[in-house]
């Protein structure tokens, strides 16, 4: 029988509830709690894995993902600026969103691998943290050059101590220091409930996504095409990179998904502070209204296919 992962159905349910303008909505404190749970869980999972291997072995992967984080906005910016005719600040801000990463998408791709028993490298959470950051800095520079006006102190506080990065890094360190046996006592809350928490998270994300759909009409077809084509393109080039880093098929698919996803938490906050003249609705419409649902519903299976192809064609 045709079966869809229930977490995806929760997401669709949320979109339906949002589009129909129902009252359904998680209390904002509950949503915040759920985000915190997810971020810590992802951090812990990665941290356990870090404890098992020498950090030095991961350096090539960390360097590669950081480089991708710097380069992606540089690819996206000219497309947005010249093909999309966006203002400089808007193009830079959207480019930064696409260079960074979405934790929600990451959580779904992890669930995808786990429900299909596909093995993957669990330290991917570390790459998630690394990929969050470079695009923000590049985005700010694209918007205003290396200007004295930018308050880099404030920006780096926002970037490195923003809730997302803080919780992920905290989870990674706690997982790394405790190891798998040490975490057994808190396993029921963080690991056993992971998919249930993710389902609730996606329900709310569906409602939020539906709220963005309204602005789609206003901003026209370019954003829609960009929001779908950009992640596919990014996944396509990063699948062979994942392979060359020695990742498994599952790991390569997660790697490609990380690169293909667009931020909707860390980057919007950082851009709002550092590039206030950029219209936040534009980038959120693209990343939340188009790319996030695309990745969740169609992208992840597609990126898994890319990863399989990369491994078949390139050997391994």
């Amino acid at each position: 029988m045709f079966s869809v992962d229930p977490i995806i159905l929760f997401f669709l349910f949320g979109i339906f509830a949002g589009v129909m303008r129902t009252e359904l909505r998680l209390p904002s404190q509950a949503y915040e709690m759920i985000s915190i749970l997810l971020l810590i869980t992802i951090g812990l999972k990665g941290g356990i894995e870090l404890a098992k291997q020498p950090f030095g072995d991961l350096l090539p992967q960390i360097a590669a993902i950081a480089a991708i984080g710097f380069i992606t906005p540089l690819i996206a910016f000219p497309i947005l600026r010249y093909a999309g005719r966006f203002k400089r600040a808007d193009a830079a801000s959207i480019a930064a969103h696409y260079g960074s990463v979405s934790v929600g998408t990451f959580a779904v791709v992890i669930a995808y691998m786990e429900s299909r028993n596909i093995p993957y490298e669990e330290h991917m959470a570390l790459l998630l943290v690394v990929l969050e950051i470079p695009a923000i800095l590049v985005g700010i520079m694209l918007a205003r050059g290396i200007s004295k006006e930018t308050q880099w102190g404030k920006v780096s506080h926002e970037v490195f101590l923003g809730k997302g990065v803080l919780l992920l890094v905290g989870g990674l360190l706690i997982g790394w220091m405790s190891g798998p046996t040490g975490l057994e006592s808190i396993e029921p809350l963080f690991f056993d409930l992971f998919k249930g928490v993710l389902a609730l998270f996606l329900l709310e994300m569906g409602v939020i996504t539906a709220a963005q759909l309204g602005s789609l009409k206003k901003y026209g077809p370019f954003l829609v095409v960009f929001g779908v084509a950009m992640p596919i393109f990014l996944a396509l080039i990063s699948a062979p990179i994942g392979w060359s880093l020695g990742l498994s098929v599952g790991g390569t698919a997660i790697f490609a998904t990380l690169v293909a996803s667009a931020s909707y938490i860390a980057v919007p906050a950082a851009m709002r502070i550092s590039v206030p003249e950029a219209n936040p609705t534009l980038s959120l419409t693209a990343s939340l209204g188009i790319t996030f649902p695309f990745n969740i519903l169609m992208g992840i299976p597609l990126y898994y296919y890319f990863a399989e192809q990369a491994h078949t064609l390139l050997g391994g």
Partner: protein
Amino acid sequence: MSVYQRKLLTIITETILEAALIKDIEQLGARGYTITDVRGKGDRGTRSASWDSSANIRIEIICDANICDKIVLHLKEHYYKNYAMITYILNADVLRSDKF
């Protein structure tokens, strides 16, 4: 009962500005403030507060007219152009002049 004339300055704006505004307000001489989470609708669309990027706060400050002017001028110069922000000022009678 003797009362003292002060101003009640209310700012409704994006949650993301909270830390920056508190710093500014204190530097400009306000001795205290009250912040609440709020939602509503205005020029920049519905601010539903369903998550961080669409959340609003209301900051209330009781201070003397002089500090109130300084704060309003500062806000106008630095935030009005790019952020969702409204401010309004009411007269307030307070009982303790040394507190505000």
